[in-house]
C-alpha cells in the first residue's frame, strides 16, 4: 500500500522497513528514520509505521512518547539545545539557559510563535571537557557564556522594529 499523500518520503521509509524485513523489534530504528525524514512524528506517520510493522497503534504511540528523543510536534527552523548535564551545570549552564529564555521570551521545550526558533535542553552531550556547551542548529559549541549564547540566537529571533 502506498501512502495516499504520494509523499516520496513514505517510500523511503518503507524501503527502510523492508531492510529490517518488517521485524517488529526494529520499531525504534524505524522511528529514528521517520523522524530524520519528516522532522517530527505526527499521528499519521505513526499510524503508517504501525500498519507497516503490523503493530497496534497504541504500541507505536507508547514507544514514541516514552523516549525523549522522539518529538511529536514540529520544531522551529532553528534550534538551540543547552546542555544541562552536571559538568555544564556547575560551570553555569543554568545562567546560559535563563539568558536565552529571557531574550527569546520562551521556555525550554517551546518554539517561538513564528516557528523560527526552538529552545531545548539536553541531559548530557558527553562533551563535559569543554563545558558549558550549547548546540546551535546541530553544531556543538564549547565554553559558552550567557552573552555569547544570546548574541548567537539573536539573529533567529523575531525583531519588532
Amino acid at each position, binding site marked *: 500500500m502506498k501512502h495516499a499523500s504520494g509523499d516520496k518520503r513514505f517510500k523511503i521509509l518503507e524501503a527502510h522497513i523492508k531492510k529490517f524485513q518488517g521485524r517488529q523489534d526494529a*520499531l525504534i530504528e524505524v522511528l529514528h528514520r521517520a523522524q530524520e525524514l519528516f522532522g517530527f512524528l505526527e499521528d499519521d506517520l505513526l499510524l503508517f509505521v504501525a500498519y507497516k510493522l503490523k503493530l497496534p497503534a497504541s504500541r507505536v504511540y507508547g514507544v514514541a512518547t516514552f523516549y525523549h528523543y522522539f518529538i511529536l510536534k514540529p520544531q522551529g527552523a532553528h534550534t538551540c539545545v543547552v546542555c544541562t*548535564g*552536571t*559538568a555544564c551545570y556547575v560551570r553555569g549552564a543554568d545562567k546560559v539557559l535563563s539568558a536565552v529564555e529571557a531574550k527569546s521570551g520562551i521556555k525550554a521545550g517551546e518554539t517561538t510563535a513564528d516557528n523560527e526558533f526552538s529552545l531545548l535542553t539536553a*541531559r548530557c552531550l*558527553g*562533551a*563535559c571537557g*569543554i563545558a558549558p*556547551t550549547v548546540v546551535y542548529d546541530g553544531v556543538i559549541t564549547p565554553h559558552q557564556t550567557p552573552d555569547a549564547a544570546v548574541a548567537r540566537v539573536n539573529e533567529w529571533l523575531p525583531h519588532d522594529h
Partner: protein
Amino acid sequence: MIIDDLDAIAEAERSSAKKTVIRCCMAAGCMSSHSEAVKTSLEKIVRDSGLSERIEVRGVGCMRLCCQGPLVGVDPDGIIYEKVTPEDAPAVIIATQGGEANVKRGDPTHPFYTKQLSIVLANSGLIDPERIESYIAVDGYRALHAVLREMTPNDVVESAIKSGLRGRGGAGYSTGLKWATVAKTPAAQKYVVCNADEGDPGAFMDRSVLESDPHSVLEGMAIAAYAVGANQGYIYVRAEYPLAIKRLQIAIKQARQTGLLGSGIFESPFSFTVDIRIGAGAYVCGEETALMASIEGRRGTPRPRPPFPAESGLWGCPTLINNVETFANIPVIIRKGAEWFASIGTGLSKGTKVFALAGKIENTGLIEVPMGTPLRQIVEEMGGGAPGGVKIKAVQTGGPSGGCIPASELDTPVDYESLTRLGSIMGSGGMIVMDESTRMPEIARFFMEFCMDESCGKCIPCRTGTVQMHRLLDKIVRREATPEDLAKLEELCDMVARTSLCGLGQNAPNPILSTLRFFRNEYLELLQAQPDGKPAPAGANAT
C-alpha cells in the same frame, strides 16, 4: 582470514609508516573546536610542500586534555600542541623540519599525563579509529585468535575470573562470574550485549573509547561471545553520540569485510555478528532489563530480577550484558595474562579505571589510573585543582546515583569499596569537581530533578517519590522549609531507596543522603526556625 593474513596486514601497516606522524584529535570534544579544519589544513600543507613521503597526518581518537583542544601531537618528537587553529598548520609543519613553532605547547611531563596508566585507552589518541589496519598493527584481534585457537570457552571464563575484572558500568559485579553464569545456562541461542548507553551526566569515558578504539570493544565482545556460547551481539548506543555510532558502523563493516566478524572466524567453527541499536534518550535504558526491552523495540521499562539476564534476557534467551569499558579490557587481559592484570590495582578492585574529569577543575578531560589511586592525586595533581586556585569543596562521582565526597576525604583511594563507604559509588566514571561556589542543596535538587524526569513511571515509589523529594528540596532551596520538611525528606529517601524496582529509584536518594551526611549545615541554614523559636539543631557530621 588466518593468522598469516593478520600478520601481513600488520606488517604492511608498520612498513608504510612515515618518519613523522602528526596526530590530530578527532574525538567529539576537539571536533567541536574545529579540529577537522586543523587536520584538513595540515594535510593540504603536507601535500603542497611535497612532504607526503615523510609526514603522515593521522586522525586519532581522544588525546585526553579536552579543555585545551584541538590537540595535535607530533611523533617521534613527543610534542603536544594545544588550542591549534588551521592558521597554525604551517608553523607545525615547519617545526617538524627543525625549528620552533609559535604555537601553544602542552607539557607531556605534567602529572596529568605521567600519572596515567593506560590499558583501556592504550590506543586512544594513537591509532586511526576509522582504519582496522591501524588497530591490527598494534596487535589488534590477536587475542581473539589466541582464544579461538588455543583456549576452550571454559579457559576464557577462568581467565576472566582470575583477572579479578569487575564490571565498569557501575555495580562492580565480577565479570568472570557473570560470564560463567551465562556459559552454564543451556540454550540454543544466547546473546552478548554491550551497554553503551552512557547516560550519567558528566560521564564521557565510553563515548571516548568508542570514538577512539571501537575495534577493542568488538574484539572484547567476540571473545566474550566465544566464552559464553553466543553468536549474536548488540551494541546499544545512545543517540546523543552520533560520532561514536558512525565509528562503530565503520568498524563493524571493516571487521566483517576482513573476516574478523561473521561466520567461521579464523577458520574456526565460531561465528559472531554484531548489530548496533540506537537509543532514543531515556536514562533508565542504562538499566539492563530496560535496555533489553528497548533492544526489543519496546518502551524501556525495567522488570524485576530474578530472572537475571544471564538466565533469561533478550527474547527470553540467556544474555551477557557488559559495559563498553569492561569489554575493552578483555583483549589486553588475554594478550598479557590474567595474572598481569590482577597485579594492578587493589585487593578487590583490579586493573585501571577511566575517569572523565569535569566541572570546576583546571584540566578537564579523560584519565586512566590504577584502581586505588587517591582522589587527591587525581583532582589536585593531575587535574590541577580548581581554576584560579579556589578551594575544592567536593567531588561528585557516580552521576545521579552517586554522591558528593567532601574535600576532607580526598585521601580516599578510588576503588569500589572505599567509594561505597563514603556513600557514593564508583559508577561509570564521571568525576565532577565542585568548588566553594556550589551549594549542595541545589546540587541535590539538580540531581533529583533529573531522576524525576527520567523515572520511567512503572513503580510508584520512584514515580511519585522523586516528585515529592524534588518538591521538598525545592522548598528547602527557596528557604521555605521547616525542620519537619527535612525530616520528611530523610524518611522519603529511605522509603524510595528500599522499595523502588530498579537502580534508578533505589539510588535516586544518594545525592541527598551524601550531601546531608557531609554538608548538613548547608541544609540547616536554609531552614526556617522551629515553631518554638529554638535555632535549628547543628549538624552531626558537618564539615
